[in-house]
């Protein structure tokens, strides 16, 4: 829920709104509510989004805080106890080399979420910057950037990473950069459209009148105006990146073993015997990715509806 503060707090579009006389039907209590409180109210009314946020929080606590209090070693090999079913000592059993599945699940979660967050971060940074430049400058720069966005968008990033992994060998850094570079156009388009809509608003004109340059306008007025939308896109991009990382690691082209990730934990489950008789090896990481991504998507959808109820 900490995300909520960032989202609706500095909601720029409303700052620039001319002070229209409030309609008579609106009660005085409602009129005094800040945009943030209104957004929060809308978010809390969406119980799926609230449930998503709660489960997400539980995930984050398990993955990032639990290992501080509990001894978990995802790399400890114990060949005498390989493929043990869940039981005392090994909460979710052990894998083919006797490593604890629960420990790998927790540390794999760190890797998967880390890659997802980092890749989405790269995408949002690139998208915001390029989108803002395209929107604020216009002209040929706008055309070139948006044309590039179309081209990037039409290439499926999964396939691009497969090719890059083939040529340069798979690595986490390449995964983050490649996913980021191919996910930027979505945020770029959104930021551009907000910037174009804001460009001629009074508060921007006022800033320009007192001598603000383009860089200042972008960083102080136009990007903050797009912030709520950026957070929404960021959330949805994180979900997408986690999913892509999982698929690529599953194919053996993403995070490389022994480093655990939710995707590569499922790679071993490609054998019929494992699928049939050792569900503890494939059900937990699969459920973890699906549930995690689902929750992030619920939160993202909830945030979008809270920020801009007209889109629903």
């Amino acid at each position, binding site marked *: 829920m900490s995300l909520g503060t960032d989202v609706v707090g500095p909601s720029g579009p409303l700052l620039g709104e001319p002070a229209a006389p409030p309609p008579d039907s609106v009660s005085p209590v409602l009129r005094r509510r800040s945009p943030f409180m209104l957004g929060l109210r809308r978010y809390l009314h969406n119980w799926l989004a609230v449930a998503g946020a709660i489960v997400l929080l539980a995930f984050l606590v398990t993955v990032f805080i639990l290992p501080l209090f509990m001894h978990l070693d995802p790399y400890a090999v114990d060949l005498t106890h390989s493929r043990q079913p869940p039981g005392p000592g090994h909460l979710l059993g052990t894998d083919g080399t006797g490593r604890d599945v629960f420990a790998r699940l927790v540390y794999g979660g760190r890797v998967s979420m880390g890659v997802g967050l980092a890749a989405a971060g790269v995408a949002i940074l690139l998208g915001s910057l390029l989108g803002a430049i395209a929107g604020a400058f216009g002209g040929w720069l706008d055309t070139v950037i948006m044309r590039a966005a179309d081209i990037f968008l039409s290439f*499926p990033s999964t396939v691009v990473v497969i090719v890059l992994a083939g040529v340069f060998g798979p690595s986490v850094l390449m995964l983050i950069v490649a996913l980021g570079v191919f996910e930027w156009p979505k945020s770029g388009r959104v930021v551009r459209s907000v910037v174009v809509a804001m460009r001629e608003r009074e508060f921007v004109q006022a800033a320009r009148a007192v001598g603000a340059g383009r860089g200042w306008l972008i960083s102080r007025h136009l990007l903050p105006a797009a912030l709520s939308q950026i957070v929404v896109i960021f959330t949805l991009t994180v979900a997408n990146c986690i999913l892509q990382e999982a698929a690529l690691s599953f*194919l053996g082209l993403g995070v490389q073993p022994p480093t655990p990730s939710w995707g590569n934990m499922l790679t071993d489950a490609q054998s019929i015997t494992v699928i049939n008789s050792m569900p503890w090896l494939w059900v937990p990481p699969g459920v973890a990715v*699906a549930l995690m991504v689902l929750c992030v998507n619920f939160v993202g*959808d909830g945030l979008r509806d809270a920020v801009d109820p007209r889109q629903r």
Partner: protein
Amino acid sequence: MLIAFLLITVIIFWLVHLAPGDPVSRLIPIDEYNSGTPAFLKMKRHELGLDQPLIVQYFRWFGDALHGNLGYSVASGRPVSSMLAERISPTLELMGLSLLLGVLIALPLGMLAAVRKNGITDYLATVVSLVTISTPTFFFGIIAIYVFSLKLHLLPSSGMSNPTDGSTSDLLRHLVMPVMVLGLATAGQLTRYVRSSVLSELSSEYVRTALAKGIPMWKVMLKHVLRNALIPIITIIAIFLPGLLGGAVVVEQIFAWPGMGQLAVTAVTRQDNAVIIAFALMVAILVMLSNLLADLLYAVVDPRVVLK
């Protein structure tokens, strides 16, 4: 788009150039390469133009690719073009049928969700489509194998056909699970587009007019709304195609479907660069064609658009 395509072939060529390994090994059959003396390889290098400037090499490579000469696989020693040729149709089959299934699910579901906006159907459709979007294809595939192959013994878990049984029904049985998995993933994404596209049409004035005239809702939906709502949906489907290939790669891997994706993944794990590059080229062509298709379809379904 053609310029973009040429630009992409330059990038692909540049990647080839950066890739580790002796380029000669990609361009002649591997047996010849392994048994060749240094003098022979030097001669080959000259013959293949690898001692020429990069730009000359690019045009040479591009010309060869246009003639269908994509070099030789390091792993199998076979020409890449013939390896690729036998892989294309299984992938297209998988993608085409999955897309069909996806559309057949998404259209009614999305329309229903839009008509009953904020109702229980809408809610369910939204949740179901989000669940299918969020579940990784490979996990979905493994669940399908577990249920249908291992527990119910209904369907084969891998391959495209049984070598001892070449009948059509055997092929169909092998098709069911891959198409189901990829199709449902596609349906999840499409449903949301259908819903929002139909919603934006439902608020138009012609809908209100038609309803005011007393035309029943289902008739308005099929005769008026659907036709207009389809315009953006059809272009979205065309743009979807490359992404569908990404999904097909994963599905082919799970079900051992002998398509392009499986070929590419095997090539990557063996560092078989000639095959990887050919795959990249195929992807670029697919992207270009689907963009072209989107533009053409746009003009076909919307008479207001005139192609120049």
